[in-house]
């Protein structure tokens, strides 16, 4: 069976979803069902434990893995604090590091993200850093103990698809941890595209949450991610068959 692993957990679904931007929070469990997503990210800054009616955590079924994120953090120090608060609040050990110090383009700060990853990985968090797709930064994150690397496809909320395609390809080729494409995925075809390229998973939030029918859109993304993944596996098998074939062109060297 085709699964993928983050930290100590194995997942069947390669679609990660998010809780932000939903008009009606009661749609979240229905969307999780239709999309078959097993991991959902939630901004800690919006978790309102004092108010049970508004507390977003109460809308997430128990079997779903929570991926709290540090949205709002502008420095490594703030991200680390938010991660620790999330763990103390019972959100588990997973943490998506999101450090944005640029409100104009909403670009992540790779340098601060590496710093925060080092600290949090050492504290046994399962760290998923959100970055600008730079292979050097990705390697440093791997060394720092990141459980996966989450490069952006295009700026947050821009729905422009894989504008950073070539950079993400380099990450995929060189990474020893899963690559999860996050941000910029505006429609299912973008998600399929990322999976066909060999991304291990994708994270989709606003394209589902802001659609007219988030439940149906969740289902559409589920299919796209599965199709893209199957295409990748099928293609990869093609490749390996090719590699195993006899070598009519160069075989003579070894004769």
């Amino acid at each position, binding site marked *: 069976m085709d699964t993928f692993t983050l930290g100590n957990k194995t997942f069947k679904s390669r679609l990660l979803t998010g809780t*932000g*931007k*939903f*008009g*009606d*929070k009661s749609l979240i469990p229905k969307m999780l069902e239709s999309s078959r997503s097993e991991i959902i990210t939630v901004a*800690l*800054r*919006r*978790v*309102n434990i004092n*108010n049970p009616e*508004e507390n977003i955590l109460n809308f997430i079924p128990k079997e779903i893995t929570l991926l709290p994120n540090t949205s*709002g953090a*502008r420095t490594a120090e*703030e991200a680390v*604090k*938010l991660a620790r*608060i999330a763990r103390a609040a019972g959100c588990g050990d997973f943490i998506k590091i999101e450090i944005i*110090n*640029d*409100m*104009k*383009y*909403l670009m992540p700060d790779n340098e601060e993200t590496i710093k925060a990853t080092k600290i949090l990985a050492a504290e046994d968090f399962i760290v998923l850093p959100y970055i600008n797709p730079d292979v050097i930064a990705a390697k440093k994150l791997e060394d720092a103990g990141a459980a996966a690397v989450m490069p952006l496809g295009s700026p947050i*909320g821009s*729905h422009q698809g894989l504008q950073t395609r070539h950079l993400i390809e380099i990450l995929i080729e060189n990474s020893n941890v899963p690559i999860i494409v996050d941000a910029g995925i505006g429609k299912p075809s973008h998600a399929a595209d990322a999976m066909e390229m060999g991304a291990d998973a994708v994270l989709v939030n*606003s394209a589902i*949450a*802001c659609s007219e029918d988030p439940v149906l859109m969740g289902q559409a993304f589920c299919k796209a991610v599965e199709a893209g993944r199957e295409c990748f596996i099928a293609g990869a098998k093609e490749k390996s068959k090719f590699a195993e074939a006899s070598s009519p062109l160069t075989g003579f060297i070894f004769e």
Partner: protein
Amino acid sequence: MSFNNVLKHFDNFDFDKYLNSVSDSDILKSMQKSKLNHYDLLNLLSDKAIKYLESIAEKANKLTHQYFGRAIQLYAPIYIANYCQNVCLYCGFNARNKINRAKLNLEEIEKEAVNLKSTGIEHVLLLTGEDYKKSGFEYIRNAVQILKKHFHSVSIEIYPMEAEEYSELKNEGVDGLTIYQEVYDKEIYKKVHIAGKKQNYQYRLDTPERGAIAGIRTINIGALFGLGNVISEAFFTALHAKYLSDKYLNTEFSVSFPRINTKGTDFSIISNVEDKKFIQMIIVMRLFLPKIGITVSTRESSKLRDKIIHLGATKLSAGSSTAVGGYTHLNESEKQFDITDTRSVDEISKMLKSNNFQPIFKDWEQI
């Protein structure tokens, strides 16, 4: 460099002449663009563009959903003092006005906080009149310390300060600053601010920058509509927001378009702003700066606020009182202005949900 340098470019700009020259095709071209320049901004703010309001609104609605989702943040003001050293002709709190003056002591502030918090509000905006002595720095600092215990986010709307002072307040837990220029037109500014430190136009104009330098996370600016010409004031508000967003990438800027309410004064409105013009300013702002926050307070009617959530607004006040001690009725003063949307926090929350919007009570974590 100050925003004043940008303003100076327009010292001799003939707004009327330009606006009269705007054609339908100019407006249509500006509407198609994804990045608007300042001519596009003026084209869309022109009276001629009113007939394209529905198309502009559609685009504004789409952009708001794209960047903010179906979510509206809620906050409430908390007035702790109404002493003021300025004489602003349009304001009921002005120093020459014979009204009941009040200043809450720290215990009273705490009681106000507890009462306001019980409505579900998590983001609070602390207000005083502009009295550097009666509402001195230490008083503000003490008030912030109390509010921080009860709320997840504390913003301030007080007299302009130095960057070092903002920085100290930031360390106490202030994460937001609201500072309105009131009016960008320098002549009118002079005419309506006749005494007090507020007479210093440039110092006020540079206040948001001092806040940004101090590292305050969110800064809200605006003009008081009813003072200057509506189109040029909306234009300068938008340019000011752009100037700040371009210069301070790490600060989140938002804008308000408060319409004047002259309660307790005999001030006559210089330039009236009709509902359609008000809506036009908001939707054009969204097209000009798609990621900017837009705040609409209870100055506006419930009828209008129910619609504005579809047109670009991202933040609403709810269950507000504009009187000192207004949530406990302790040491209660007169109100700064009458609120129009008098619904409770719960009612606003229900209205948002019935429109398929998520009310966001908490959007920050004190760290």
